[in-house]
């Protein structure tokens, strides 16, 4: 069916072209013999081919172009004719004798062109007459092409400043009037296309219309090219007139296209100065017009303009561009009640970008935008629309990207409020964006308040939001996310211990709400950054002011123990144990024996009660031994207790080789090189011997089991221990005795 139509159309076009060419041939012949009468007759017949209603715009254009070429030749002929003595006025009348209106008007325009060039009458009068006469064609397609022809031939003949057709003072007004009128009429015709024909062809019609839109838009282009249209004229006449037409046509395609056209065609400087007029129009447009794209375009252009010329900036301030835009957006949203959330958010996103570009120093503007956005979103609940969330992400990412500094974004009080309207998934994405920005730019976040704010932003990652189903979350992704949070925690730093302490407390508060799945990721970095703080404190002299409230290592340790305790509840005993040991070591370095002892105790409790897996036990015991070995603050009693226990644990490991290894490792506990009171040779040897025994037993067990001699690895390892300096010293003592 469609193919049939296309085929028919092709046929009609071919017939049209044939008719046109035939008449053009006779016309040429008449022109060659200077026969004006015949030339007119055949040209009118030739142009009659354009009267067809059967062609689509595309095909009609083809036909039109051919006629256009012929008309150029005819124009030259007319010109020669006037040189031969035929008065152009008579010619102008003569072509109007044609009975059919379409050929008549094409001819009239053609002669009109010659007439203007002859300067026998003011250009404006002729133009006015032409544009007025063209009213006779009310058929959209034919009318559009006719008027486009008129626009084409008149383009270089518009009276303008400096042009040869410049008339008196009102010159510009005349040209402007002419173009505006032609524009208005063309737009009317264009809009009318929409309402013709059956409803089922709507789609096809819209496609056809979009093919024709440039014919209409070209008028605006011509307007912008008129030298004499300066800012005042634009503001007073051109823009209001064009906008009036845009508003009155009540057609969404036209409104969208024309608004876009206005924005693209005229200079940014004009837009800036006429912002109010321009913006007032938006709320009056049809609800189905895609305002957001147009308005975004405008804001984008303005921000580019601001970026390109620094001188323009004061102008922006002067015209209060921002507040006008903000108001306009508010009104648009109000006017278009059923605009999707997505549209509103896009608008705000564009406005935010504009504000960031043009007024990077005015953070309050950005905040205002976010505030308005929140107002729009409120009452709509969580946003489900994926397009809208995408836009919100863009909206929220903009300030972060622009300032390369999350700290700035943190100052935006409305920022987190916008976040609230996102669903969890998007919230997480947003949080990742924020964290990534921090990482990339190595942003220092140095105060507790900022940390507070920051965690507010990334809370999607910090805790579960209203019962998300966990199993839906991809394990890999989850780890990735939590790792990034961990990295973020590492980035939080302030040289001032007071503030740092506050930061840590804040972070603690947030991460403790994170639930068992997150803690293993988030606690260690916090512990380590606390330990770092302790080291820093330790480097300083003991509280020079004796300030009660001052941060002391003690206080930090208290906090640490609470944090780690949380971890042990999950349970994650391995990790907790390691952290306890880390803390103990730190306490050791601070010479806080009771604290260190406490941490060890905690570690031992964990070992005894929670760590049951044998492999885990081996790792744990070695960690304990390693840490204990380095402790130097313990008094004899405490130390004995701890070492004794450690040795005890070692001997109780499940497998003989493991026992053996743990025990010989324990030998290190009794001999610390740089501490005089910790060189207990006897017990070192005892340990080693015990290890040997165990190794033997292990060997025997193997023999029994396999009936072969087992490996000598354990013995070699023990021998290795003997080679340690303390072992050798002990050995010497023994031999001396």
């Amino acid at each position, binding site marked *: 069916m469609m193919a049939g139509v296309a085929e028919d159309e092709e046929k009609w076009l071919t017939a049209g072209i044939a008719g046109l060419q035939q008449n053009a041939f006779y016309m040429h012949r008449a022109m060659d013999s200077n026969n004006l009468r015949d030339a007119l007759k055949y040209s009118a017949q030739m142009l009659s081919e354009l*009267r067809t209603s059967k062609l689509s715009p595309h095909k009609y254009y083809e036909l039109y172009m051919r006629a256009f070429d012929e008309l150029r030749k005819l124009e030259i002929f007319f010109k020669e004719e006037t040189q031969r003595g035929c008065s152009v006025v008579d010619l102008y*009348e003569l072509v*109007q*004798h044609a*009975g*059919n*209106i*379409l050929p*008549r008007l094409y001819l009239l325009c053609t002669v009109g062109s010659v007439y203007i060039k002859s300067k026998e009458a003011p250009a404006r009068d002729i133009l006015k007459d032409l544009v*007025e*006469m063209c*009213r*006779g*064609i*009310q*058929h*959209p397609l*034919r*009318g559009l092409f006719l008027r486009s022809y008129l626009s084409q031939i008149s383009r270089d003949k518009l009276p303008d400043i400096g042009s040869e057709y410049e008339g008196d003072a009102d010159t510009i007004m005349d040209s402007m009037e002419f173009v505006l009128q032609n524009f208005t009429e063309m737009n*009317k015709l264009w809009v*009318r296309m929409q309402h013709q024909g059956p409803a089922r062809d709507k789609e096809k019609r819209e496609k056809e219309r979009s093919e024709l839109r440039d014919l209409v838009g070209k008028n605006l282009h011509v307007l912008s090219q008129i030298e004499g249209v300066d800012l005042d004229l634009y503001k007073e006449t051109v823009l209001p007139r064009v906008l009036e037409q845009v508003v009155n046509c009540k057609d969404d395609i036209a409104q969208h296209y024309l608004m876009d056209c206005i924005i693209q065609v005229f200079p940014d400087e004009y837009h800036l100065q006429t912002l109010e007029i321009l913006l007032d129009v938006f709320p009056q447009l049809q609800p189905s017009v895609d305002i957001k794209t147009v308005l975004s375009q405008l804001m984008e252009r303005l921000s580019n303009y601001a970026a390109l010329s620094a001188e323009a900036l004061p102008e922006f301030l002067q015209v209060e561009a921002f507040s006008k835009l903000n108001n306009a957006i508010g009104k648009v949203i109000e006017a278009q009640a059923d605009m999707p959330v997505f549209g509103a958010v896009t608008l705000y996103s564009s406005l935010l970008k504009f504000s960031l570009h043009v007024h990077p120093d005015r953070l309050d503007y950005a905040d205002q935008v976010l505030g308005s956005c929140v107002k729009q979103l409120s009452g709509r609940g969580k946003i489900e629309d994926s397009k809208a969330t995408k836009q919100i992400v863009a909206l929220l990412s903009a300030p972060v990207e622009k300032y390369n500094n999350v700290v700035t974004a943190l100052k935006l009080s409305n920022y987190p409020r916008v976040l609230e309207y996102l669903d969890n998934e998007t919230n997480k994405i947003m949080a990742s964006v924020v964290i990534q920005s921090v990482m990339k730019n190595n942003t220092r976040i140095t105060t507790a308040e900022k940390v507070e704010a920051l965690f507010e932003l990334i809370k999607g990652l910090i805790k579960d939001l209203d019962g998300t189903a966990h199993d839906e979350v991809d394990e890999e992704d989850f780890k990735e996310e939590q790792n990034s949070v961990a990295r973020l925690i590492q980035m939080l730093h302030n040289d001032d211990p007071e503030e740092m302490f506050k930061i840590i407390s804040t972070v603690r508060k947030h991460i403790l709400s994170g639930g068992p799945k997150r803690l293993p990721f988030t606690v260690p970095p916090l512990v380590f950054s606390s330990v770092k703080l302790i080291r820093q404190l330790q480097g300083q002299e003991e509280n020079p002011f004796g300030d009660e409230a001052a941060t002391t290592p003690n206080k930090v340790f208290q906090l640490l123990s609470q944090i780690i305790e949380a971890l042990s509840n999950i349970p994650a005993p391995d990790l907790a144990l390691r952290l306890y040991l880390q803390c103990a070591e730190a306490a050791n370095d601070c010479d806080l024996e009771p604290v260190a002892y406490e941490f060890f105790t905690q570690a031992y409790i964990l070992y005894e009660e929670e760590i049951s897996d044998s492999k885990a036990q081996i790792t744990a015991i070695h960690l304990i031994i390693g840490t204990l070995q380095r402790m130097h603050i313990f008094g004899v009693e405490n130390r004995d207790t701890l070492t004794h226990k450690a040795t005890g644990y070692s001997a109780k490991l499940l497998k003989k080789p493991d026992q053996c290894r743990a025990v010989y490792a324990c030998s290190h506990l009794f001999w610390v090189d740089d501490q005089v009171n910790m060189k207990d040779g006897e017990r070192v040897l005892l340990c080693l011997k015990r290890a040997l025994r165990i190794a033997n037993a292990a060997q025997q067990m193997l023999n029994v089991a396999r009936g072969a001699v087992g490996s000598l690895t354990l013995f070699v390892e023990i021998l290795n221990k003997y080679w340690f300096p303390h072992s050798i010293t002990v050995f010497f003592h023994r031999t001396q005795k």
Partner: protein
Amino acid sequence: MNFLIGAFKPPCNVSITFSDEGTRAQVSLKKDNGQSIMVPLFQNQESIIGEVIIEPLQGKKLEHTGVKIELLGQIELLFDKGNFYDFTSLVRELDVPGELYERKIYPFEFSNVEMPHESYNGVNVRLGFILKVTISRNIVGNIVECQDFVVRNYTPLPSINNSIKMEVGIEDCLHIEFEYSKSKYHLRDVIIGKIYFLLIRIKIKSMELEIRRRESTGFGSSTYVETETLAKYELMDSTPVRGMKNSGYNMLLIYFRSFTLQKLQMKLLITHDHVGESIPVRLFLRPYELTPTYRNINNKFSVKYYLNLVIVDGEDRRYFKQQEITVYRLLETP
């Protein structure tokens, strides 16, 4: 044979010349046989002065009972062909009865002749002027020689020339208002006007303006009316945008008779603002062969002109409204 031919041939040549032949304008006149000849042009109240030259054939004698010249204004109706009605008849006796031997010239003069009617060559009627020389003879027939001339009368610019304004339509379907700048046009005039569309609920294919000539001959029961369409001038292509319905004017509907079934109703015009689309009218009368309007020429015939606005809808139905205009011949002041 020579004798025979000589017997039937008129024994003399008669010719009529005008004294201002060299300067007087000549126009073409279509004769019955379809040929056009150039004849002098006169207007009302002009004096017609000239000479009649009678030249007997070589060696012949022309006896006559008198020579006269007549100026005749004649109306000839088609249904009564050959029967001339003379509305003007002037006679000048040129010679008393006698004999002519040689060429003789008779000057004549009709001074300030009343010629209120113009020469006209219509479908059913002709109005013409002739000068007729008659050489009366006793036994053989009279010798008659005719010379046509054309009369055209000029009118100064009318002091009152109202525009034609009218609002017509079909109830709730189509309301238009049209306006022609004048009601009286001279032959080379231009019809300027505008058509306003106040309400359109039908699909219009095109709109034309026609010039129609209505020639009516005879009176009473034997009236013949002949209407010709002289011009068809397309004014508009396709349907303009729908105008808003206009309130605030009285509707006085008068039905007009028309030749087809489609009628445009007319309302008396109450001026109001124009809301819808307006279509310009500019029609040059020059290319069309118009004559002035003739009203009731000697109770024999009338020629009237009408502007007919025709709207053709999507189904090729024609709606129209006819308005009479007066056409006159403008006195061209140099």
